[in-house]
């Protein structure tokens, strides 16, 4: 498995858009397959056909809305990188909240606040998990003490 490298900034938007579309279409496909299977009339053939058509019709739409989310998120992220001149978790969290707010802007200010909170918390969770993972994996690559005095290589 190759190391996953993120693209440099303007192209990251396209990359994230595609990643979000893929995620949405696969997740939505599974969800809609189950839903179509359960909602179709009885009989295995009917159920399979219902599942197929639900996936065919609904999964691209879910993928599309995911793609909008990912593309807007990445655009705001890149804009923040440009404005602040640095790349850190706060960028992601802010752009998550802003994306939520912008996409809910047609439903009124209350929905905007709720959606922004959702986006911010979601991205904070993702970033937090990422930081924790990095910490955890970094411990395994710590060089052993060459003098051999401390026998315990646990984190200080």
């Amino acid at each position, binding site marked *: 498995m*190759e190391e996953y490298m993120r693209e440099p900034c303007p192209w990251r938007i396209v990359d994230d858009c*595609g*990643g979000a*579309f*893929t995620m949405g*279409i696969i997740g939505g496909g599974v969800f809609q397959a189950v839903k179509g299977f359960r909602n179709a009339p009885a009989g295995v053939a009917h159920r399979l056909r219902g599942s197929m058509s639900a996936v*065919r019709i609904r*999964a691209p739409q879910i993928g599309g809305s995911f*793609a909008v989310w990912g*593309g807007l998120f990445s655009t705001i992220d890149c804009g923040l990188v440009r404005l602040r001149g640095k790349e850190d978790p706060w960028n992601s969290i802010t752009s998550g909240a802003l994306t939520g707010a912008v996409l809910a802007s047609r439903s009124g200010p209350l929905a905007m606040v709720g959606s922004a909170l959702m986006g911010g918390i979601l991205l904070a969770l993702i970033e937090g998990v990422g930081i924790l993972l990095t910490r955890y994996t970094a411990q395994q690559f710590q060089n052993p003490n060459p003098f051999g005095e401390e026998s315990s290589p646990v984190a200080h």
Partner: protein
Amino acid sequence: MDTNHPGSAGGRGGLGSIFGGGSPGYSHSDLAGVPLTGMSPLSPYLNVDPRYLVQDNDEFILPTGANKTRGRFELAFFTIGGCCMSGAAFGAVNGLRLGFKETQNMAWSKPKNVQILNMVTRQGALWANTLGSLALLYSAFGVIIEKTRGAEDDLNTIAAGTMTGMLYKSTGGLRGVARGGLAGLALTSAFALYNNWEHIKGSSSRLSL
């Protein structure tokens, strides 16, 4: 001390002469231009032939097991995103055109604006979804074919395109499958031709000469 000094200096000179002129008087042209034979270093600090240090092409140190170019999987998200976004742009323009055409004989008012906007968003979403799912199918097929064949060339592109067309039109019966497959085949063949145009042109001109 004083008597020892010239002797040690002479010894150093002798050592230098054994190794082929390690005199401190070497000039820049000596270092750069004199062709070296293997046993005589020009400088005490440079014991390799400088001609070996010249690099005229790019050389990269790659991690073990890494490919020299990016594979299909690394490019898949970019392809999908690009198709999705260009589909959205095309669909928006198309929706604008359709909306204007549909509301031609309406007064310039709010309903007209709303109708045009609706058309733009609907067409944009439709085209983005269609092109995005096509690109997703194509990328998935491409990755699968590349992994199973273990090779990467234009045949993969064409096969993936054909299979995408066939699967996308698989609801329309056998005729639809055939038509979709043909469309995919034609599009990806054109793409492969365009990609290798210089190569093909060079070989054909060599053939005609």
